[in-house]
């Protein structure tokens, strides 16, 4: 059996889904981030001066891009898979000979692609406000892909366990958004009091944002290797959980 066709079918279906509703999926991040750059970067940033040796506008660009990647890769998978489950069209896939890893890989790929597409849109908007020369393109791409993978997986697990539409908005609103804002998007952790610096280091998003910032502008509050290690660990852990949930049919089968 040729599983690549089933995988491609799921990925193409996912891409069509978010492209078809582009005013809901691709346009809002462009507007929101343009406002971030204008208000925080331009109007307030000019008064803040340099942060870790770079202008405030340059400093926030990587965090804003990655924050968009995080929220959109998560949102894509959680909303798409939960809707599929809610409308019961997941049964189309479950009755077919599609292995669990193909289901997972298909939906996660959709989340990664949307996350990277939104990240690219935000990066293009940032070019109107900042003049950034990429420090290391490999780090930029690898961290963006790995981060999108982590949050697509998290979104998948949320969708499987969710029993109502309320359940798919709790994590983005009450966990992801606070962790993103407290992950050093708009500030350096060095600017925080010692206690908050220590607490911040328990936030995985801090590592991802700083590694991405290092790739983009060569500035970071943390060790890059640690960021890779942590992201890799999360991907392994969340993949295993997702596969176990699919194998047991939790939330999908009676």
């Amino acid at each position, binding site marked *: 059996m040729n599983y690549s066709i089933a995988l491609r079918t799921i990925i193409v279906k996912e891409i069509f889904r978010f492209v078809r509703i582009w005013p809901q999926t691709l346009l809002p991040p462009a507007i929101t981030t343009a406002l971030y750059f204008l208000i925080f970067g331009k109007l307030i940033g000019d008064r803040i001066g340099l942060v870790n040796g770079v202008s405030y506008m340059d400093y926030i660009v990587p965090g804003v891009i990655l924050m968009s990647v995080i929220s959109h890769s998560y949102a894509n998978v959680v909303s798409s898979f939960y809707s599929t489950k809610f409308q019961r069209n997941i049964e189309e896939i*479950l*009755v077919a000979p599609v292995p669990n890893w193909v289901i997972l890989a298909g939906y996660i790929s959709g989340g990664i692609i949307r996350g990277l597409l939104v990240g690219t849109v935000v990066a293009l908007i940032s070019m109107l406000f900042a003049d950034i020369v990429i420090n290391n393109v490999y780090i930029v791409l690898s961290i963006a892909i790995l981060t999108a993978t982590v949050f697509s997986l998290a979104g998948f697990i949320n969708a499987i366990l969710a029993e109502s539409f309320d359940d798919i908005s709790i994590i983005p609103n009450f966990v992801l958004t606070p962790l993103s804002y407290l992950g050093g998007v708009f500030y350096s952790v060095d600017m925080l009091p010692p206690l908050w610096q220590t607490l911040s280091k328990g936030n995985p998003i801090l590592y991802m944002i700083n590694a991405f910032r290092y790739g983009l502008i060569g500035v970071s509050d943390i060790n890059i290797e640690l960021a890779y290690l942590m992201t890799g660990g999360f991907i392994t852990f969340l993949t295993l959980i997702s596969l176990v949930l699919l194998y047991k049919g939790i939330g999908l089968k009676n």
Partner: protein
Amino acid sequence: MKALSIRNLQKTYNNGFEALKGIDLDVEEGDFFALLGPNGAGKSTAIGIISSLVNSSSGSVSIFGHNVKTDVVKAKSCLGVVPQEINFNQFDTVKSIVLNQAGYYGMPRKLALQRMELCLKQMDLWDKRDSVSRRLSGGMKRRVMIARAMVHAPKLLILDEPTAGVDIEIRRSMWQMMQTLNENGTTIILTTHYLEEAESLCRNIAIIDQGKIIENSDMPSLLARMHIEHFVLDLLQPLLEAPSIPGYQLELITPKVLSVAVPKERGINQLFIQLNALNIQVSSLKNKTNRLEQLFMDLIDTQVGDVAL
């Protein structure tokens, strides 16, 4: 070759409800098989387990000799399922629903396009291929589900109440379509609440109630077991009261409509002779209820009686 073989299948849900209490069932290749039962009897649970949408508690299910747990790919490739409720993405076009399903079965694009065209034409949906599915009528949506289930040319097709809620014209065209599929070699298992549908289409039948198979035989043998048939006679002249004819139970429903219970051993000829003798003219005759429906109710009532005891 058995299209479907079920052995000691049991399902107990997490809340303790025993939906299936160890059923055994065989469906031969090429059969048109009716799986009947009242609501909550366990039909949908059994279909869910066969189609891998419900985990069984114990027992085994094989489709054309392939176990659904140990030989999943081959078992699933032989099976097409048309569920009771609409379960496709209603924002997708008819074409993409069927093509996506072909993709899940690993069908190359060129072949998928050919099969999609064939199935949509068979279901008289080719003109609607670019329509968004939520804009279709109820009958068309059901046909989309059948086209989707048929796209990978399954050898066994399970139709779970495919004609529920559709008008008589569409129902009859769907009967015709199901018969054609069966004549072309597809084994069909049909669940329905329209017992007239099961009686006219199916060759073999199983009745499930309270998680157990209470009847499993061919349709003629089952119908032959009826001891009494109920008829309604339309009369040419009105009567004041029901006549008394030994061996038959007669009841006057309206002055010109007579209901009669005919014991099988007596037959209907004697009744007409007696009515003639009484100068009662009959203009038409029909079954009071569908024969299978009568038998079905008798079997279910017996089960309820057993439980009550």
